[in-house]
């Protein structure tokens, strides 16, 4: 294995996604998903240093070196589709998500149980999300002169208030155990426990009470 930092551009409809290769190697890839308003790290973070395979990191739409669409329209489901593009390119991966990346990792584990070889959920920006019920928020006059830059201010606004009902999150947790891999596919390693995390804690296939390093070692051993 050797450390590197190259960027591959993947096409997701009209958006160009930046997939960073942080370490080349063989075996199951580890895919890092950053927090809301963040971008991929340029080097392998310490928490993932002992991962035995290649390590990649994805910039979500409107973040890092991915392109910025005009006029917003973000949702966590679009970010899920970002990850799905990367998963198919990699042929599957273990996911390590920070903040909103943790929520997206849960969605990906439920949506593509055959491609996600474990999802490690950790603290970070955008972990909580928005309401779990209706909320009256629509009028935002402008994003100022930051339009076109990353992180896209529309991403920060829209993704910080996306609805995450408890039963929606628990549905994805239930779907995650339908895959062919003999693992508990979700590892909750965050200290902060927003309602969607509380909702999945008791679901089958969800591990709690272990650190992110322990969870990664557990998935690496499978």
């Amino acid at each position, binding site marked *: 294995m050797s450390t590197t930092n190259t960027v591959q*551009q993947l*096409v997701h409809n*009209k958006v160009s996604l930046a997939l960073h290769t942080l370490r080349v190697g063989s075996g199951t890839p580890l895919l890092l998903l950053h927090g809301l308003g963040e971008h991929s790290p340029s080097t392998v973070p310490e928490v993932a240093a002992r991962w035995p395979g290649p390590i990649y990191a994805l910039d979500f739409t409107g973040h890092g070196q991915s392109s910025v669409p005009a*006029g*917003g329209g973000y949702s966590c489901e*679009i970010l899920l*589709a970002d990850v799905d593009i990367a998963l198919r390119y990699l042929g599957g991966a273990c996911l390590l998500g920070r903040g909103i990346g943790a929520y997206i990792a849960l969605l990906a584990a439920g949506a593509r149980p055959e491609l996600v070889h474990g999802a490690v959920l950790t603290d970070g920006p955008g972990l909580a999300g928005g309401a779990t019920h209706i909320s*009256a928020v629509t009028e935002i006059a402008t994003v100022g002169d930051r*339009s076109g830059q990353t992180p896209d201010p529309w991403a920060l606004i*829209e993704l910080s208030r996306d609805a995450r009902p408890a039963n929606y999150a628990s549905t994805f947790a239930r779907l995650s155990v339908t895959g062919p891999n003999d693992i508990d596919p979700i590892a909750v390693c965050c200290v902060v426990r927003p309602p969607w995390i509380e909702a999945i804690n008791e679901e089958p296939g969800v591990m709690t009470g272990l650190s992110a390093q322990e969870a990664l070692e557990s998935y690496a051993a499978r």
Partner: protein
Amino acid sequence: MYSRGTYVVVDPGIVRTDDDVVVVVDDDEPPSKKLETTAKTAKPNTPHSRYLWSRVRKNITNHTRRHFGRRRVIQPMTNLPSFPGAQRPARSYRTDADGVSIATYEWGNESDPPLFLVHGGSDFAGTYDVFAPIMAAAGYRVISWDHRGHGDSDHTALYGWDADIRDALTVMSSITNKAAPVVAHSKGGALMLQLADASPYRISKLVNIDGMPSKRRMPDAPDHDQTRMMAGEITGWLDFRHEAALAHRKPGSLHDLAVRRGKMNPRLPIEWLEYLVTIGARQDDDGWRWKLDPTMRFGGFGPWRPEWTLLRMIALGMPFLGLIGTIDEPMGWGTRPRDLAPWIPRNGRLEAIHDVGHFVHIEKPNEVSAMILEFLS
């Protein structure tokens, strides 16, 4: 209005979604495949990458022509169909909504009080071409617009509920910052319920035409079966996202497109649908194509719950008129009058119009416009 597309394999190499979208998933020409790979790996947003993608799109068009046998150039039609009572807008222009160009239209005198019309999903402002002139003749400056991805507005990379509402606010603010009456149909009605709840000072009176979704229509199935159904919706949507960049609309004659539309609008006369084609579709060398962004895919999944719209509706303080047809249609919500009765706001009323489908104002423009004009007065 939400329709659910299903994938139908029509021949090797092409996946067709719904009845109108073609996705080339496995080009049979090695040079095209190589070109596509090159385009995907090129540095994005550069002149070179734009050139490569234009080559890919051209190859796809040629590929589709081979599969659908439409190599011939069709002579442009000059004698386009009209429809009794339909009038194109008196004025049309573009409104910039945070970098998204929104096609905006007006009927009536500019000095008259404004009235906003909001169309439904998969529709466009031209679907008001009979209804809007009636309202304009009654003394309103009638304003409508094509939602992003619809009609002549920009196709965007992302589509979302809040983005549609922001676009609406941009258009409305360009006309007036005072409260104004709004008439909205289907998805547009649900959007305006949210806007009226969040910014009540924007809307003086609200008319919602069959845009009041109640609980999601789900078959009587146990939880585990519903979870499995949702898994199918998720994977179907994600699979489509992989191919969305290559999706484009299937060409056809003007009549072909009207017939396709008729599957979703079975109660509307073919003459009306053919008239809509002349506005909502464009005429290319190889035929007509609906302008609706082929990367949009309605239905599917998400955290939103239809009943949340009703929780907003009961909270409204401005005068409210809800209109609902009693005949279910593919593009409708499946809501029954009895579903809505508990959620009508104190200052509002619901009118069930019998023997009418989802497009209440199109099926009965005179009756509905009279009812709305009385309400607005």
